[in-house]
């Protein structure tokens, strides 16, 4: 089911792009990532709107009053918060649901990249069964897995001064960190747990994705880097990038709410 709906179509689209651009798998991954990010753009906009609205209401007097009033009773606090959400017509899932929907697409993208690279016999056999009949597998193989200095089917390292430097893993970690920092909504509420979690994510995610880039095929790193850069660009186009967040010691600036901008 997962294979038929997500992985197989993704793999074939990736291969169509690969063929159309003349057999450069690195460029095919970049274009495919852009395509997926464009398709999921409305979800991202919805997520930004949701989290912006959440921030706005957390700064409201009514919200603060509820927090103070039910400070000692977590159950009652949760009930009152839900009541308040209903009252103002806010769905608390609106900020996280789009992210949840995007996760399978990201996994599908990753699996399709790994499948199309077909770096081992069983993977090639699986690819053979995945490609649609309009492809002639004999003409498709071998896929050109070389991109710049990399073999996309292998973890990347460049050798300099007798050292093996995982350049892509470093770039993945940096771009992930930058994306997390500049797209993190500025919090105006003291003790905002959402903001604290966001800060933790900004710390852990670069390490996690950097580790993946270090361990897995470099084709995946190309996807991570492209995805991070496109993500920053999307936020920038929506006026939601906070570059000051990259400067240590700078206080965050509240970016304009999407809803406000559109009015």
């Amino acid at each position, binding site marked *: 089911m997962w294979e038929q709906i997500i992985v197989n179509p993704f793999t074939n689209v990736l291969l169509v792009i690969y063929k159309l651009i003349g057999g450069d798998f690195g460029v095919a991954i970049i274009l495919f990532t852009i395509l997926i990010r464009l398709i999921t753009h409305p979800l991202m906009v919805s997520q930004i709107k949701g989290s912006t609205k959440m921030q706005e209401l957390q700064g409201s007097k009514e919200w603060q009053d509820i927090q103070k009033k039910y400070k000692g009773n977590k159950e009652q606090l949760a009930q009152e918060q839900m009541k308040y959400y209903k009252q103002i017509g806010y769905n608390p899932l609106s900020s996280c649901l789009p992210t949840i929907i995007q*996760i399978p697409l990201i*996994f599908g993208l*990753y*699996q399709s990249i*790994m499948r199309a690279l077909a*770096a*081992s*016999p*069983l*993977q*090639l*056999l699986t690819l*053979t069964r995945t490609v649609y009949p309009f492809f*002639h*597998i*004999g*003409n498709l*193989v*071998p896929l050109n897995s070389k991109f710049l200095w990399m*073999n996309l089917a*292998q973890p990347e390292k460049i050798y300099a001064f007798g050292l093996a430097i995982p350049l892509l893993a470093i770039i993945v970690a940096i771009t992930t960190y930058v994306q997390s920092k500049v797209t993190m909504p500025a919090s105006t509420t003291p003790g905002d*747990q959402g903001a*604290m*979690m966001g800060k*933790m*994510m900004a710390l*852990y*995610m670069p390490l*996690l994705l950097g580790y*993946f880039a270090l*361990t*897995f095929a470099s084709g995946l790193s190309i996807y991570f880097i492209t995805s991070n850069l496109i993500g920053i660009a999307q936020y920038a186009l929506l006026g939601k990038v906070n570059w000051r967040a990259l400067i240590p010691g700078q206080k965050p600036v509240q970016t304009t709410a999407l809803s406000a901008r559109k009015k």
Partner: protein
Amino acid sequence: MKMKKLALIGLLLVPALLLAGCATGLTASSWPAMTVDAKNVYLAGGPYVYAVSLETGAQVWRFPDKPSAANPFYATPVLTPDGGQLIVGGFDKKLYSLDPQTGKTIWTYTQARDRWIGGVVATDKMIYAPNADYKLYALSLQGSLQWSFEADQAIWGTPVTDGTNVYFGTLGRKVYAVNAQTGQQVWMQTLDGAVLGAVMLGPGNMLYAGTYSGTIYGLNTTDGQNVWSKQATSWIWSGPLLDGTNLYVGDANGKLFAFPVSGTGQPWTKDLSGAIVGSPVVSGKNLVVGTEAGSVYFVDLDGKNARPIAISGKIYATPVVAGPLTLVAPTDGSATLVALDETGALKWSFIPPK
């Protein structure tokens, strides 16, 4: 707050584990391969190389002591002509020489940059080892590099040598002849598809190779000229088998072909159930072929009768004949290795001890 931190770490770990799980789809990256001597069958499959007694089916030894699921062994293990070394490469980019008696490491070659997928060819002086890093490595029997030759693409198939040249195919649709002493290219021929399996030398200075586009080529070993070709109905994975009269090869549609290469041979085609990935082998008066559908076929050499024996699992690996036994290593089967007698009855099966 501590609980929240734990929840967040959990949230990060779930996708991490899922991604890792996807990546370890790489763990089962190929299928087992084997070779035999008078006493044992040596099987490279998954995290271990096993030596299994031909007599009893019991494990004699296994290598390494500490396995890595991320770095399995799938290249065909090969014995040196004196039987003193078992050469096998792993997905950890290392080529090992093991003592066939004990499984202890004699030497390790660590300079390759990619996985060892194809088996080596060993002579009484040299070891010619193909790697997925596009290179063919020539090593002494002590494991020191003599020369290396860089081809256009990954080399997955086992090379072959006539003493003068080493011949091999690449995923880049090329077949190369390289001087066995110096590593200099003698000729290179472009075919219509990737050469995934071994190439085979035949009489009359001929070299045979099957392609992923479904063509069998006969090349002149002197200059690489294409002097003979036949068409299968789908892709060909493993190398062809030559018995002096016919060239036998199977394709993805389950068709087994016999193409005459001498005046006395007769062409025939036999339909079997399931894709044929491994090469056929000769056992007495039969050809033995495994299929993806999980059957081992004993086919008469004239192609008239085919007797299927059902085996648990998919059969991608080329079967190996050891005297009266036919050894089959299924993928995803209940046993890692099964031994059939001449009637096709199960003699023993090997399930690795935990």
